[in-house]
């Protein structure tokens, strides 16, 4: 048994793959059905936003930041605006802070509904996808009514918000919350908390233990699903959130156990839907009258920012986790010296990749399990020596030789001499 050779198979998934929503590449090394290693390669959607940001002024970056992501477009320009406000010591009117909370929580609801639908789609339960995305339309209409756009609603500006929430919007939002409480949430809870089929599929799948979540600094619902009580809105005492009674949500309050699997992450999202609706209601009640921005015009803000010195960090709990923006002033210039951001998916992706090691291939979301086998034809079989870590690519000829040896070992009487076919499917001509 000392000289036993492990046959490890590498399966590349992505960057372009019908099962993946976005271009990213996972190279999964398998030992039988067990995952030995997951390698992540990114950059297929690299647009060089930081590089573009080196050529834009503070106000222009506000709209560039929004276009980093289509789903959390509020989060990005909110966090950027906070970083600039910290840098230039700008005070934001209180009403603006409340509007930021309301729009931010509306965005969280629509993002979580979207994610619940996608999770349903991944396990082949497409009814959930259609129903949750239908329910999501209601919130998109409200965001359109407030900001003028379904996505990229550009609510924030430096020192406040650009759009006010009037009586009409308030009525619409309260109607929507009533509709969600009575029509949508009972169905969502029925599916994600009590459905035995969903529980059987999602329980104990893709478990991220608490230790790995801390070590790889998982964020947002991924961390809270593993039992880490961490929420930037709570830790950072962000804006007016402490006045609204914010608390991190873990699955313990709903199911009583924390396992850190896919099911727990979905439970956290369901819990946050309830929490967001409560936050919006409280914010609408407590919202004071007054100004909504510190500067009447953008060029006034720009003149102030031109004189600014120092640096600022903005942090916000985006629907997927902690979002960080950093801005450093370049005194005398309207272009910042450095603008840097970090999205929550970045650490989460590596935490998930680490957590998948040792799991079964079928436990990777069904999207990855239902892989087109022709993909493995494109990559040849590689053997990695676990002691030296050296790679050796085996051609068809080597494999045939190895299989002949094996057959001889089992049955020495066989006389046949098979030859390489050298076909089109990954075959290498001898």
């Amino acid at each position, binding site marked *: 048994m000392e000289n036993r050779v492990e046959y490890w198979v590498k399966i590349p998934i992505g960057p372009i793959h019908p099962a993946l929503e976005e271009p990213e590449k996972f190279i999964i090394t398998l030992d039988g059905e067990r995952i030995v290693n997951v390698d992540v390669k990114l950059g297929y959607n690299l647009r060089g936003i930081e590089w573009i940001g080196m*050529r834009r002024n503070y106000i222009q970056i506000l709209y560039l930041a929004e276009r980093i992501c289509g789903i959390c477009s509020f989060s990005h320009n909110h966090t950027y605006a906070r970083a600039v406000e910290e840098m230039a*010591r700008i005070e934001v009117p209180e009403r603006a802070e409340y509007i930021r909370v309301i729009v931010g929580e509306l965005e969280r609801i629509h993002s979580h509904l979207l994610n619940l639908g996608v999770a349903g789609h991944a396990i082949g339960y497409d009814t959930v996808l259609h129903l949750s995305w239908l329910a999501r339309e209601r919130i998109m209409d409200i965001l359109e009514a407030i900001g003028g756009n379904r996505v990229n609603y550009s609510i924030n500006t430096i020192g406040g918000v650009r759009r006010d929430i009037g009586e009409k919007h308030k009525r619409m939002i309260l109607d929507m919350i009533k509709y969600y409480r009575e029509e949508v949430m009972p169905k969502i809870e029925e599916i994600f908390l009590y459905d035995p089929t969903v529980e059987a599929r999602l329980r104990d799948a893709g478990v991220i233990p608490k230790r790995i979540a801390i070590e790889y600094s998982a964020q947002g619902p991924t961390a809270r699903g593993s039992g880490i009580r961490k929420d930037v809105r709570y830790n950072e005492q962000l804006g007016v959130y402490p006045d609204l009674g914010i608390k991190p949500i873990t699955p313990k309050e709903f199911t009583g156990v924390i396992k850190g699997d896919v099911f727990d992450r979905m439970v956290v999202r369901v819990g946050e839907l309830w929490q967001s609706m409560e936050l919006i209601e409280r914010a609408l009640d407590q919202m004071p009258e007054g100004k909504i921005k510190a500067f009447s015009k953008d060029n006034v803000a720009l003149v102030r920012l031109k004189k600014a010195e120092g640096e600022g960090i903005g942090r916000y709990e985006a629907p997927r986790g902690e979002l960080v923006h950093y801005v450093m002033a370049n005194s005398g210039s309207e272009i910042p010296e450095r603008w840097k951001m970090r999205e929550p998916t970045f650490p989460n992706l590596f935490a998930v990749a680490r957590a998948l090691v040792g799991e079964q291939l079928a436990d990777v979301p069904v999207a990855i399990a239902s892989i087109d086998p022709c993909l493995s034809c494109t990559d040849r079989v590689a053997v990695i020596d676990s002691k030296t870590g050296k790679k050796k690519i085996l051609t068809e000829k080597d494999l045939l030789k190895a299989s002949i040896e094996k057959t001889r070992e089992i049955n020495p009487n066989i006389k046949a001499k098979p030859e390489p076919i050298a076909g089109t499917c990954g075959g290498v001509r001898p």
Partner: protein
Amino acid sequence: MTPEEFLDTIMEKFPDVEGEIRENKLPHPRKRVWINVDRKEFKELMKFIKEIDPKAQFSIIIARDGEDCLEAKYHLELFYDHAPSISLIVRTKCPKDDPKLPSVTDVFPSALPYEREVQEFLGLFFERIPDSRKLFLPEDFPEGVYPLRKDKKGISSAMIKNAGHPYKMKKEG
């Protein structure tokens, strides 16, 4: 532990570092600890931070091309079980002709993707990094070109196509 106590603990162990606490003007003022450390002591400091809070969260590396140096800032969050957690920024730098910093992946394993990102975008290398492949840039990206550098090693104007400010863009062809 309050930010003040935390800074005192650090200053006691490392008398050479410069540290200050800055506060912003949100409705609930927020304190951040900014620490400036030499690269020789940097690794020891990071180990000490991990000792103070074993659950400390590594958030981001912000690297920057200063005029004559490359600068890296590490943001960490400590004691996030309590409401105002400690937001800590550790700043260190290295000269441009010797762009090397010690890797902290053995202390904070989640630092690896950020270190790989900084290596390819700014040419600031980390000693003893376990995996030095490119993460974002394609494999055939030219060697010795670091997109976020502001000097000659950055992207030259010959490499830029169809980019720039929309109003100032030159029409090609």
